[in-house]
């Protein structure tokens, strides 16, 4: 208890948090929520490993680091981010240190019915009014509370009814901060109205050479009836980063969401995915791939909530863990009493590439309906010696053979990415990581 209390006190007395909370609300329209979230964070604090949900992932050092918020968030120009574009035609939305950078973004050619911009410019949008800060639960999630209490900007992507956009929207999160220890709150709202269809790609990169970075990202994704969202998260943060990502998807009837999380960065990564199938006939895919090295921890917590009947969910998580790295997978599936005819599947496959690598896998199914099909499976193993020998016996060197097998292991997740151009770019980035 004392540890928890200490931790809480430390972050709460840090100059950063006090400054944030005491400063005038950054988004006046939501002042009450922001204030409430600040209180919720005060009540929860930074979780310790005594907290069941944070058992394997120690983030307590966040509480003792004197983080600063970057004051300089407008340094990037279009030319600086050109190379990073996910596809040549992608719509680029740059968040520099969590703040929308219009200058570096390319929003000139947005199709009719697609609205993208900073929360400060979109407060009049009906979908923004209705959904902003409304879906991620800050009462139970300390980092959502911290994010909600501290964000200074947010990016909103709104697709009006019946708008189908094949060109990917690329949310490029770039860190340029030069503070010794930088805190970067990132806030995203995506709304796909009735029958709308969009592709969103998030990338996280850093141009910063600072000591430590704490990225605290919250995305709220809302799908109206029969909407379709394909979403890819590419997390390529450097080793000095602690990246905590909360992704909430609220799904209406007949909607479809496909989410691929690629955790290829070098820092500590914690993903919390929270999918709510809130009406009938929804379809949700959650795929994830991890490449973890050195002493890294990569933690995927997923929760799929089947609240209504006739929904389908499928999870595929694959982790490649090397060196002394640690992988964590915790997959919760809830099937509520009313959610008859639910199909829910979960698969977690892990490869340990060294003797010191560890994996903690925990499937967690809570089923209250009786007419459902649910399954889960978790396997952890090593690279197959027979396969390795087979490749080497054909002249392929040991390192290349290992890379080929690691690729093969990852292929299933990569294949799931719907947009061909995005898939190609992601494979290219993966190639670099597996070399």
């Amino acid at each position, binding site marked *: 208890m004392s540890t928890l209390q200490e931790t809480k006190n430390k972050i709460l007395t840090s100059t950063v948090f006090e400054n944030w909370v005491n400063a005038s609300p950054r988004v006046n329209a939501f002042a009450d929520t922001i204030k409430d979230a600040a209180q919720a964070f005060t009540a929860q604090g930074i979780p310790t490993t005594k907290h069941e949900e944070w058992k394997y992932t120690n983030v307590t050092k966040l509480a003792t680091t004197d983080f600063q918020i970057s004051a300089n968030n407008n340094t990037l120009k279009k030319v600086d981010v050109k190379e990073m574009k996910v596809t040549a035609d992608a719509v680029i939305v740059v968040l520099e240190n969590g703040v929308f950078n219009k200058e570096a973004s390319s929003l000139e050619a947005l199709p009719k019915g697609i609205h993208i911009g900073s929360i400060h410019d979109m407060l009049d949008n009906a979908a923004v009014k209705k959904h902003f800060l409304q879906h991620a639960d800050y009462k139970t999630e300390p980092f959502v509370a911290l994010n909600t209490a501290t964000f200074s900007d947010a990016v909103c992507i709104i697709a009006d009814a019946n708008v189908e956009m094949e060109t990917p929207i690329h949310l490029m999160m770039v860190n340029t901060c030069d503070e010794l220890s930088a805190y970067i709150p990132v806030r995203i709202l995506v709304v796909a109205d009735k029958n709308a269809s969009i592709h969103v790609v998030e990338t996280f990169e850093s141009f910063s050479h600072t000591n430590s970075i704490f990225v605290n990202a919250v995305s709220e994704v809302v799908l109206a009836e029969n909407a379709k969202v394909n979403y890819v998260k590419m997390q390529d943060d450097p080793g000095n980063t602690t990246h905590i990502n909360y992704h909430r998807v609220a799904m209406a009837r007949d909607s479809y969401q496909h989410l691929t999380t690629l955790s290829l960065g070098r820092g500590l990564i914690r993903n919390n995915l929270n999918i709510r199938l809130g009406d009938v006939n929804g379809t949700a895919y959650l795929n994830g791939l991890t490449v973890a090295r050195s002493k890294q921890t990569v933690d995927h917590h997923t929760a799929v909530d089947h609240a209504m009947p006739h929904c389908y969910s499928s999870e595929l998580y694959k982790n490649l863990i090397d060196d002394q790295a640690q992988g964590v997978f915790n997959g919760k599936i809830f099937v509520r009493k009313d959610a008859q005819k639910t199909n829910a599947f979960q698969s977690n496959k892990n490869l340990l590439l060294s003797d010191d690598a560890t994996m903690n896998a925990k499937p967690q199914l809570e089923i209250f309906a009786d007419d459902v099909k649910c399954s889960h499976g978790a396997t952890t193993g090593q690279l*197959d010696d*027979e*396969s390795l*020998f*087979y*490749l*080497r*016996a*054909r*002249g*392929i*060197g*040991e390192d*290349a*053979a290992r890379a*080929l*097998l690691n*690729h*093969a*292991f*990852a*292929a*299933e997740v990569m294949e799931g990415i719907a947009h061909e151009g995005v898939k190609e770019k992601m494979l290219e980035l993966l190639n670099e990581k597996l070399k």
Partner: protein
Amino acid sequence: MLTIKDLKASVEEKQILNGLNFEVKPGEVHAIMGPNGSGKSTLASVLAGREEYEVTGGEVIFNGEDLLEMSPEDRARAGVFLAFQYPVEIPGVSNANFLKTAVNEVRKSKGLEALDSKQFLKIMQEKMKLVEMDKAMTQRSVNEGFSGGEKKRNEIFQMAMLEPSLAILDETDSGLDIDALRIVANGVNALRDGKRSFIVITHYQRLLDYIVPDFVHVLYKGRIVKSGTKELALELEEKGYDWIKEEVDATLNA
């Protein structure tokens, strides 16, 4: 080309090869036969460099080099090819991608430039005909879901692509029906060019009707105990191995 002198090898502390002597010259086809457990597959595994097999004595010289000192990939690059008795399934790696990587690694080791996709495709299409392989098979994952016959055809196809100077066929005929056997044998025969050598390990004389060997050897208790020409295989087919076993055991006990 290949000289094996007094080769001794063990697996899991159990000695399998007990001083094997054997020589292969360019262009020759040698069949190695023998009862179960005589050490046939061990010989193939030792030559290919499988790590579970420990060489406890003797030497293997391949084109003037100490083969046993080389890694499996270096042996393959130097021109040794093992057609596996049980080809491995590798989900997620396409046959074509696998072979392109392999062919280019072998080329690189010889100081040759890598083949581009177009050049590779052209060679691949040529070689596919040798084993009556269709395009779909090259796009599928390596051996995944292949029938026994398809797997063995794939081995010969890989051999054709890699153009080794010495090919070791480890019970390539096992599990094949007569049609698959014919296809595989035709593929092998097409690759006999007077320079390339083959070691054909088999239980049955049947394969040797199709791939006619220059020499036939009988392996028993980890040694070559009898050598002859293709007629020896026919004799073995007819009389079994017992007469050889008796002969050998009598000598050993004498």
